């Protein structure tokens, strides 16, 4: 190293724009949706974030208008792979309100059982992905292994690991007997210590704590004014859960507690998910032990072909928050309009403000999937001080010029 250059020695001056534009996504930014986050960073600090969506538009709402109510039930459950049962439940209840059908008590309990099993595995998978993003791949593998137990329970109850297809207008499509009940109870017994262990790990492990605590802190007023829903809402100390407010299906008959944490940071949201998974586990046990007698399965051959005119609005608490279906019927076999508002739409589009002020590494989706250096190809201005010429060149040019 020679002597430190002074201002007098300078021949050129390089002006670099203060903010770098870091696009994250849309190709699999470590989350399920192909969403693009455009992060403007000043050094390491995020100063502005834009969220671009529309990469996964499949025209499902239009498709549902073109198909019959019965086909739509299967289309609705394919909107989301992880929370397919809640989509099914919401659509089924909306159509039931139009048609005036009422499922039996046993059917309602079985619906809640599958929805709660789904909530457990959904919360497990999002915690596993969080572990992967913070670089804790072993934990990811462990959680995914234990998630298979829940998938098996869902297979026993509904017939498939992922797509349950349990709902039908006026009831459910399969019933469970005592053998299956014992099998599912056995699985839940095995699962409980594992979930408790992972919850303790997220609470006590110092590396998880240092990566998640105080990151993305949201005040309850911010959450409410940006209409964020689900565990984000409850992680910021707002007591809101559709299961408690609407008491749809059998939620009125099952004892359960709403999980609320006041901290509002990323760690609080993950811990809310673990606590909810434990709460769901208790609900599943209660349902299996207190399953009402009677018939649950509805004969699909005797259901009406056409539905009366009318409109219905149904909402459920999906694992990610409040899910809304609005179904308009003009009579006949097809619905006139089906409007779906998923919780991810509100949570992702309205959350741009929460990235501001954090470092780029704290934008969680960036960590595994993207190297921000690649797209640092912003333009810089090179000024020749001797000849007083100003020209714009890419950063790549400077790198090559440095090497010469």
């Amino acid at each position: 190293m020679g002597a430190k250059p002074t201002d007098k020695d300078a021949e050129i001056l390089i002006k670099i724009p203060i903010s770098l534009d870091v696009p994250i996504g849309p190709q699999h930014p470590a989350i399920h949706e192909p969403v693009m986050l455009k992060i403007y960073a000043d050094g390491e600090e995020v100063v502005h974030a834009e969220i671009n969506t529309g990469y996964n538009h499949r025209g499902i709402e239009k498709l549902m208008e073109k198909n019959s109510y019965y086909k739509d039930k299967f289309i609705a459950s394919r909107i989301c792979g992880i929370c397919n049962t809640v989509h099914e439940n919401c659509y089924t209840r909306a159509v039931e309100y139009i048609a005036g059908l009422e499922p039996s008590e046993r059917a309602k309990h079985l619906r809640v059982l599958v929805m709660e099993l789904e909530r457990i595995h959904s919360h497990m998978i999002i915690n596993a992905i969080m572990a992967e993003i913070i670089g804790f791949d072993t934990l990811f593998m462990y959680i995914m292994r234990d998630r298979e137990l829940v998938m098996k329970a869902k297979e026993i109850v509904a017939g498939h690991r992922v797509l349950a297809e349990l709902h039908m207008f006026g009831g459910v499509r399969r019933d469970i007997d005592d053998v299956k009940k014992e099998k599912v109870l056995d699985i839940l017994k095995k699962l409980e210590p594992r979930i408790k262990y992972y919850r303790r790990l997220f609470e006590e492990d110092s590396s998880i704590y240092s990566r998640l605590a105080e990151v993305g802190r949201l005040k309850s007023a911010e959450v409410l004014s940006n209409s964020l829903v689900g565990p984000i809402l409850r992680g910021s100390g707002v007591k809101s859960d559709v299961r408690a407010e609407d008491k749809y299906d059998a939620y009125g008959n099952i004892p359960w507690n709403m999980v609320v944490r006041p901290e509002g940071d990323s760690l609080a949201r993950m811990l809310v998910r673990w606590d909810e998974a434990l709460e769901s586990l208790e609900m599943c046990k209660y349902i299996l032990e207190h399953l009402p007698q009677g018939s649950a399965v509805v004969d699909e051959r005797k259901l009406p072909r056409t539905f009366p005119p009318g409109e219905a609005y149904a909402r459920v608490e999906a694992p990610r928050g409040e899910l809304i279906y609005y179904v308009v019927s003009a009579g006949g076999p097809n619905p006139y309009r089906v409007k779906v508002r998923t919780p991810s739409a509100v949570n992702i589009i309205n959350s741009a403000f929460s990235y501001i002020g954090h470092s780029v590494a704290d934008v969680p989706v960036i960590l595994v999937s993207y190297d921000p250096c690649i797209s640092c190809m912003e333009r810089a201005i090179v000024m020749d001080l001797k000849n007083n010429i100003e020209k714009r060149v890419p950063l790549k040019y400077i790198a090559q010029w440095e090497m010469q």
Partner: protein
Amino acid sequence: MSILKEALKNFFSKPSTIEYPRKVTITVEKDLRGMFYADLNKCTGCSLCSIECPAKAIEMKKLPEDKKPRHNPRGLYPVVNYMSCVFCYRCVRVCPVEAFITTPTHQLSSTREVYSEDLTVRTLKAIG
């Protein structure tokens, strides 16, 4: 020398991964929604399964004239394309004569299209 020994040992030993198609490690429930096909001893050729299919995976085909059963005057029978099928079992549940035979078979991946035609026609041969 020990490296050579190790290499020879590994050359003759089996891979530690599961040899999946040869060694079946997955056990599924008996009533899993798996492969299914129509029983021609019951099917009346009403085409309701084909109309109700959300994935348009069922096509109605005609039986040859000499093989038409008495209860199936039109001689139609459903052929399921397992590559399009989503295994929702809507066809199984709406069938007015419960003509579908269900199995928990789920390992159906193939490089060519797989249809239920052979399985269905075989049910007719069983009664002669």
